[in-house]
């Protein structure tokens, strides 16, 4: 089953280049201008990542992260999540850079190919910064009453927390 994942990237790269070629896109020039945009956006997240990675590595070094995970362990058991992934579940809807920092700490502590590392990866890959998106879109058009937007969005996030461990077990049974 995990062979499927290995094929995705080369296939996508090939398809994109072929598609561009058929559509008469100057592929290399376009690639370069896209890469330039990528460079700018990567550099622009650096300052907030420095602040948050610093804070999360302080949490980790002081033992506070372990304390927090243990404190949240009953809730984690309830939804079938490893307790080390709970801090990620908490910060994910609020801050993109914050959850990146927590995810990286998990990779550093447990490794990206461990069960916990994989569950955390699935959680990151299947959720967005929920509150930020709600704030941006409703804020932009002056909507004050968001009605059922927050409960519905959080239901989706909870679904991810419940399914992350299950799907990792399903696809990585060995």
């Amino acid at each position, binding site marked *: 089953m995990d062979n499927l994942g290995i094929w995705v990237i080369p296939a996508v790269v090939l398809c994109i280049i072929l598609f561009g070629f058929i559509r008469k896109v100057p592929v290399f020039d376009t690639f370069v201008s896209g890469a330039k945009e990528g460079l700018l956006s990567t550099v622009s997240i650096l300052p907030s990542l420095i602040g948050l990675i610093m804070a999360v590595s302080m949490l980790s070094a002081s033992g506070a992260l372990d304390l927090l995970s243990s404190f949240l362990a009953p809730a984690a058991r309830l939804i079938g999540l490893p307790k080390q992934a709970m801090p990620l579940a908490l910060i994910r809807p609020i801050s993109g850079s914050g959850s990146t920092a927590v995810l990286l700490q998990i990779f550093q502590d447990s490794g990206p190919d461990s069960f916990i590392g994989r569950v955390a990866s699935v959680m990151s890959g299947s959720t967005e910064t929920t509150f930020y998106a709600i704030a941006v879109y409703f804020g932009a058009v002056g909507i004050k009453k968001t009605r059922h937007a927050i409960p519905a969005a959080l239901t989706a996030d909870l679904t991810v927390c419940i399914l992350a461990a299950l799907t990792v077990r*399903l696809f990585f049974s060995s």
Partner: protein
Amino acid sequence: MNNIKFKSRIVIIQSNFIKGMNKLLNYIWAGMILFSVICAAATGRMEQLSTSVLSGASDAVTLVLSMTGMMCAWTGLMKIADEGGLTLLLSKALNPLMRRLFPDCKAGGPAVKAMCMNITANLLGLGNAATPLGIAAMQELKKNNPTQTADNSMVTFVVLNTASIQVIPTFLGTMRAQYNSAAPFDILPAVWVTSLCSVIVGLAAAKVMEGFSSG
């Protein structure tokens, strides 16, 4: 496109929501640091804490710089797909689905068009393009709604944007590669199943709650 971006940026700056979010993040960040120091003092790990302050900050720089290459390669490839018209093609393919999701919107109208473009940009992981397109879509929806209360279409659209529908989460893969994952993208099938279920649950929840949440 540039015009939309410019307009939306002004609106974002004015938004009280954003100010509230940033305020919250200020508290969280300060709280994290305060809690760390108290915890280290209580458990006698002040020495580890002191090294972590400096290493944490420098780790962030090393990490982001070494990830930059892969991220740039991806945005470069996605630019080729976008220039070739993939976004436009895919957003046309979304039309039948849109009729079901947004029964209140006129099929093929400007609001639906803008929403399709936003959804496609999200699928392709074009984050920088998705947000201005999404704001443009919200502005189109706002034309039919003079109040300050969200209507059903707006909520459904925003819920769709709070869930991750990115087909290839490149940033995640890059981070996994950075920490020496044997196959950084082997989590993709698990991510797809989880994302798809969560989007369906989120949209279903929005539909069910419509009836209960009055304006």
